[in-house]
């Protein structure tokens, strides 16, 4: 049984990244992914149900409401923040405005969900569906509105998002985007590869940290990575390339790097320098993040038997001047995080774009 309460605390990125380490970054075009690993397998939590297996869309009671059920017999389910369902049914697609923690064999009724398909009528029938995570540029707005009511409150932003990527149909249908760019989005899945034991990632677009994602264990990460890379951050990469084509060449390896080489040894030195420079950049990014402290507000708290002991789970909403998101703590230790940077704030300090200039 979930109990709602509101208490304030402060959480730093240092706490979120405690016990973890960064791997070697993967970079394709303007997107870069720094993988995160636990320092030891003992720190991972394997008693969390997998959304791809245990998350059942039980009911859409009415427009703007979603009931999700955790079908797992034992483990608690962490519902990924901004999970959405775009189905082939003649039924209104929905997305939830936040994350969730649902104990084994129970349901949670989201009364503040979003309709994301403006002119479609009908309710999605119960079932297991592939899920999306809302596009990055909508997530900051979505979390701001998480406790407000009104199923249509994301429509204005969906319409703007569609306009920004050149979709001229006037209505707020998020599926138009995924249909239009399906091939490009699929490519992100092949381009960015999950490392063995990976549990999270820091995601950069156009050299800006746009998101920090963390899962309780590698299997959970495999469940959420595809929706994250495809429908959330991949979507943003497409948007940025369309809004600002100049950004396309940024970070590309330059032929100047090899201008002065005359032997294989020289070429190997160039490769080593590139790797070292990249590693230094990764360390700097993490160093800059660690100091940041965010206000945290408890959204949901519940007790659940995790393994052989009872644990206290909390879903907290975090916020500072740039970042917003949610984390799940188990007995005060962060086991899940999904935090994104405010696109407007990034636009103010870099080549990151909000609208066509």
């Amino acid at each position, binding site marked *: 049984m979930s109990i709602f309460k509101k208490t304030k605390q402060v959480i730093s990125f240092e706490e979120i990244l405690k016990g973890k380490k960064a791997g*070697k*970054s*993967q*970079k*394709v*075009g303007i997107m870069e992914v720094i993988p995160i690993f636990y320092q030891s397998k003992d720190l991972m939590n394997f008693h969390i149900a997998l959304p791809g297996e245990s998350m059942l869309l039980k009911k859409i009671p009415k427009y703007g409401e979603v009931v999700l059920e955790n079908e797992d017999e034992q483990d608690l389910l962490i519902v990924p923040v901004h999970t959405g369902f775009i189905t082939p049914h003649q039924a209104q697609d929905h997305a939830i405005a936040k994350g969730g923690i649902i104990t084994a064999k129970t349901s949670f009724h989201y009364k503040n969900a979003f309709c994301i398909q403006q002119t479609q009528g009908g309710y999605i029938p119960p079932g297991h569906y592939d899920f999306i995570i809302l596009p990055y540029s909508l997530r900051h707005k979505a979390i701001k509105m998480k406790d407000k009511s009104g199923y249509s409150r994301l429509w204005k932003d969906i319409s703007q998002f569609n306009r920004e990527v050149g979709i001229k149909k006037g209505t707020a249908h998020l599926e138009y985007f995924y249909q239009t760019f399906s*091939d*490009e989005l*699929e*490519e992100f899945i*092949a*381009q*960015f*590869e*999950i*490392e*063995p034991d990976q549990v999270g990632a820091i995601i950069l677009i156009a050299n800006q940290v746009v998101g920090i994602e963390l899962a309780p264990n590698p299997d959970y990460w495999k469940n959420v990575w595809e929706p994250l890379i495809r429908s959330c951050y991949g979507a943003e990469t497409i948007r940025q390339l369309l809004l600002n084509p100049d950004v396309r060449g940024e*970070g*590309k*390896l330059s*032929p100047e*790097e*090899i201008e002065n*080489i*005359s*032997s*294989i040894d*020289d*070429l*190997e030195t*160039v*490769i080593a320098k*590139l790797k070292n420079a*990249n590693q230094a950049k990764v360390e700097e990014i993490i160093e800059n993040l660690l100091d940041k402290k965010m206000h945290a507000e408890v959204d949901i708290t519940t007790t659940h038997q995790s393994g052989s002991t009872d644990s206290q789970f909390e879903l907290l909403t975090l916020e500072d001047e740039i970042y917003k998101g949610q984390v799940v703590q188990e007995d005060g230790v962060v086991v899940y995080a999904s935090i994104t940077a405010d696109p407007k704030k990034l636009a103010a300090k870099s080549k990151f774009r909000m609208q066509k200039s």
Partner: protein
Amino acid sequence: MKLGNIAIIIDNSLSMAGSKNQKNDPIARSLAVAKVFQQASNRCTTLYTSEPTDVELPLPSGSTTIGEVIVKAVRLKPDMILLFSDGYENRPEGLTNLVLKGLEKIGIRIPILHFNPCYAVETSQVKQLSQKTLTLPLSDANHLQGTFIRLMIEKKEKQGLNYLKQYLMLAGRRWWALPGMEQDIKQLEKNLTIDVKEMVQ
């Protein structure tokens, strides 16, 4: 098939696992065809983009860095390098192209044949890592001859078409299999030895 001394590079990164429907198909096809090349070569060294835990069955895992492995292969001074990869690299993208430009700059011109077992979803074509490699689609070992005939026609049109003609004649004679054709078939088979090394120079 004549190959000479070769270095084989297998991209065993996660994307070589392919799709959920045909899991591990790209790596399996690459390994099978690589075995054929190993047998046909005078000397062969096989390198992987990441050290496999099991060399007999290097299951795909992790990220892709190909450029550095090409440099390692070049140090072995092979007659040619055969690369098996889906063409997606991410640590970082473009490193292979930079390495190949670097090798060209220092006067090393070892031919690289890139066999790609996947069609890129966005283009429905095989993805190139660099314009400095010959990129060929890879289906399976049975289709290698067809792949090489195509390459031969592209590189040396007259020789390639002549080869194709003989290949079709052989196929016809094998199909008819009439008495007295045995000698003809043997001669055609002899003529159809492909000197890959010469072809890619």
